[in-house]
Every structure is written in structure tokens, then in C-alpha cells.
């Protein structure tokens, strides 16, 4: 019994033990959390690229596009999560509701980033590319987009990191991700405080955010080799 009591200690430092005791469940939550954090950003970027390009190419569209996407970003996530199923006619348990809501946020965040990233491409470079005979689409993918990568990557870092936090919010309405560790820990904290699942959830969320952040940084470096060629 002492062994058991030890392994179920309420101390915050026992989160590692808690993880070992529940590793398959926790890994499942971690995996679903990762998935939910990454996929919406990727889809969001794919949607934001043409929108951002439009906002940049046709200047008059910039204010409305940026205002509308900015407006979407002010909707509290908890409200968006519960609004998505009835608005789109989805099943209430539909696993898509969180990714859809998060995609909305990612688009909202990234449209501006893409537009500003494209704006960061020097006008001279665009002119030169045009003079060299690039057609508009070619020029976008071969010249403008690569040069805009660092700015877009900065936006992506913000998007993935904040997504990790928002996904946890979805845990509070009973969706399966690391946020559940918080609700479980909270429930188990009556009558006495029980920290391990809460601390474990925070640790895993932070680790996940850091790893995803580093992944974007690495991707950025990979895609912009010329930025490392700094004259001494």
C-alpha cells in the first residue's frame, strides 16, 4: 500500500510518474493535440495565400480583407467551437469542429502575415523579375513567395504556438486533447488538490509548443538558405 500511495502522490513533481502510469492515454491526447494544432495552420496557410496575394495585388481589397479576418479573430474560441457544429450542420461529436474553428483563426492571423510578407518583397526585385520575363504566377511562386518566407514563418510560429493553447480550451468542453488533463485534474482536486495531471498537461503543452515552434524555425532556415550567407 505504501508503494501505491507513493505512486499516487498529489505533489506537482509527480507529473512524470503520472505520465508513466497513464502513458498510452496521455500519448493519445498528445497526438490528438498535435494533430489539432498543426493541421489547421497548414490548411489556414493554404487559404491565406490566395487571400493575402489578393490583398497585396489589388490594394483596394486590403482594408476589407484585413478587417473581416481581424473581426474573425476577436470571436472567443470557446464560442467558435460550439458555434461551428450548428452553423455547418455537423454532428455535435464531429471531430472536425475544433480543426474548423482553428482554421478560421489561422486564416485570420495568416492573411495579414502573407499580405505583409509579400509587401516586404522589394519593389525592385519584383520589377527585375518581371523584366526577366517571369509570368505573374511564376513570379509569385519563384520570386515573391520565397522572399516572403521569413515574414510568413514568423506568423506561422505565432499561429502554431497560440493554437496549442487554444486547443486546450476545447478540452474544457469535453473534446479529446491535452486540455482534458486540466479538467481531470480539476475534478480530482476535490476534496484535496491533485496536481500531477494539471502539471503534466502544462508541461506537455509547453513542450509541444516549443517543438512546433522549432519545427517552423527549421523549415524557415531550410527554405531560405541565402539568409545564412551573411557577409562576415
Amino acid at each position, binding site marked *: 500500500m505504501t508503494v501505491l500511495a507513493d505512486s*499516487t502522490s498529489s505533489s506537482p513533481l509527480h507529473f512524470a510518474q503520472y505520465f508513466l502510469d497513464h502513458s498510452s492515454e496521455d500519448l493519445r491526447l498528445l497526438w490528438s493535440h498535435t494533430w489539432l494544432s498543426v493541421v489547421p495552420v497548414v490548411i489556414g496557410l493554404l487559404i491565406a495565400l490566395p487571400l493575402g496575394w489578393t490583398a497585396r495585388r489589388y490594394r483596394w481589397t486590403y482594408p476589407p480583407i484585413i478587417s473581416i479576418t481581424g473581426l474573425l479573430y476577436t470571436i472567443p474560441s470557446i464560442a467558435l467551437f460550439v458555434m461551428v457544429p450548428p452553423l455547418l450542420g455537423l*454532428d*455535435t461529436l464531429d471531430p472536425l469542429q475544433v480543426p474548423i474553428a482553428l482554421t478560421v483563426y489561422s486564416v485570420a492571423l495568416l492573411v495579414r502575415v502573407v499580405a505583409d510578407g509579400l509587401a516586404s518583397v522589394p519593389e525592385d526585385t519584383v520589377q527585375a523579375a518581371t523584366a526577366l520575363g517571369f509570368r505573374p504566377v511564376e513570379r509569385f511562386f519563384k520570386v515573391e513567395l520565397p522572399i516572403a518566407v521569413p515574414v510568413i514563418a514568423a506568423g506561422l510560429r505565432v499561429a502554431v504556438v497560440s493554437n496549442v493553447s487554444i486547443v486546450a480550451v476545447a478540452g474544457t468542453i*469535453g473534446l*479529446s486533447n491535452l486540455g482534458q488533463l486540466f479538467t481531470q485534474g*480539476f*475534478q*480530482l482536486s*476535490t*476534496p484535496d488538490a491533485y496536481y500531477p495531471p494539471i502539471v503534466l498537461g502544462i508541461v506537455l503543452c509547453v513542450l509541444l509548443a516549443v517543438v512546433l515552434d522549432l519545427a517552423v524555425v527549421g523549415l524557415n532556415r531550410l527554405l531560405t538558405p541565402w539568409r545564412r550567407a551573411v557577409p562576415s
Partner: protein
Amino acid sequence: MTSRILASGAAAAVLALGVTACGSDSSDDTTTGGSSSAGGATIASKFIFGGAAEFKTRGDGLDGLKRNYGVEFGKFRVTDTGGPVTVNALKNGQVDAANVFSTDPAIKANGFVILADPKSNFAAQNVVPIITKSKASDGVKTTLDGISAKLTTAGLSDLVSKVQVDKEDPDAVAKGWLSQNGLSSAGTAAKGVKLTVGSANFPENVVLAEIYAEALKAQGASIKTKLNIGSREKYYPALKSGSLDLFPEYSGTILTYLDKKATASKPDDVYTALQAALPSNLTALNKSDAQDSDTVVVTKATADKFGLKTIADLAKPAE
């Protein structure tokens, strides 16, 4: 914290149990009814009541307390559905009375006093497996009926306490209970059956689902679990559409969820009404005696100070 939303419901027999344990009796029955009409400030009118938001709108919520006992609280404070927020708010004095579930180990741990519900404001809440009809083979039925037969309210409290107080894992607790009750022996009664077992996201419901799952597994069934799904409005549609097959439910709440006008409050009445209210593809197997009911609780200090034993006492004039 929408977890136990509508997983709330009623306390009838259980209340008597709880109150007896607290040294209460049903002798007040005769005096309670009319006392609220005495006028002036009642005890309740000085109280802040804590409960889930839906307690304001539920038939057996604030309305039921007023209708049955003439109890009208001074203020209502939204906490959560019998979860940690409610318990803490009551313990710390942010609210004076609260809606907590009868099996909650926090009641014992904090010395909360359950106020008796002699008029059965809260309906009976027997634990009952709800299952997709097509999956309810004889073997499955026998297995689950065996569990229901052994499950008691005291046993249920014990299970919750193991998870919540001793922080044991629900699946370990489930296995322990099954072997203790001689239900863990291997067999082939449910061989060939494929089932997905679901649970809401509060410890007791998770343990119950684990018990069902482990017992069926032992009988050869192929089991998938989807535990810790949020509130009833999340999981019920899944149950109805067939993406979940088996769910531990509470007879009173699921009945109110299906039929908002339901008035049954006694265990057998509730069970009969429930069978009638379920859609054709679902059925309720035998109910157990175990109940986890809604209760109105106050702290020991409050109970002593105002001499509170039943809900009706709240309608007495304040000193």
C-alpha cells in the same frame, strides 16, 4: 465544466439514506409544506445557492424547489455541475447551499450535510446501461445485468472515492470491483459482439463504463472505448446514431433529457417512463439499485446554525 450537465437529476431514496446518516428523520414531513407562506424573510432568502446554469431552467431546479417546498433562494450563483467549482464555492463560503451529487466523496470529506428531499423533487437516478438494441445479445444482457445486480449506492460511492480521493486509475478500480464481486471470470457469453463503450467526463461515469467494458471483454466481446466525452448533448446524438453502443446512464436525467415534461420520480416509474421514451434503436437494460442523485447540501456549520435537516427547512423564517 459542462460535464455533468443534465447528468444531474433527482434524489429520492438516496436522500433519505444521506439524511439518516446525518441523523435526520422524516418526522418533519408534516410540517414543511405550508411554512413558506408564513411571509417575511425565509432562511433561503438570505442564501446564495450554487449550481450549474441549467439548474435555473430545469424543472427540478429552482422551479421545483419552489413548487415542492416553497423555497426561494436570495441569489443564484452559477458554479458547475456538481464539480470542483461547486464544492469549493460551498466549502469556502462563496455560496451557502449547493447542488452536489450524492456519491461525491467531497460530501463526506468536507462534512457537508445533505438536506432530505421527502417530496422527491429530484427524480430517482438509478444507474442503468443504455445500449443499442441490435447489440444487446443475450450474453451481453446477462453480463450487464450481473453487474447491475451487484451495484449498490454504497458500492458506487466507494468506486468514486477510490478514483477521486485515492487517485487510483478508473480501469484498475473497475477490474478490482469486478473481481471482488466475482464477475471477472473469463467466458464466451459475449463472443463475436463488437461494441463501443462511451462515458461522460466525470470519474464515476468513467469507472462505470470501464466496468462494463472489462466485463464484456472477459466474456469475449471486442470492445472499443470512447471515454471522457463531454456532456450529454455531445454524446447522446452519437449513441442515437450508432457511433456509440453502450453508455452508463442515470435513469432520471436521461428521462428528463428525452422528455422534458416527465413527472415520474420513483425508481420503477422512472424506469418504465424511460423505456417508453427511448428511441426504437436504443434500450435500457436492468437498472441497478445504485443511485447517484442530485442533492441540496449545506456545510455542517450552516446546518447547525439554522437547524436544517430537510430542504423544506430552508423555507422557515429566518431568526
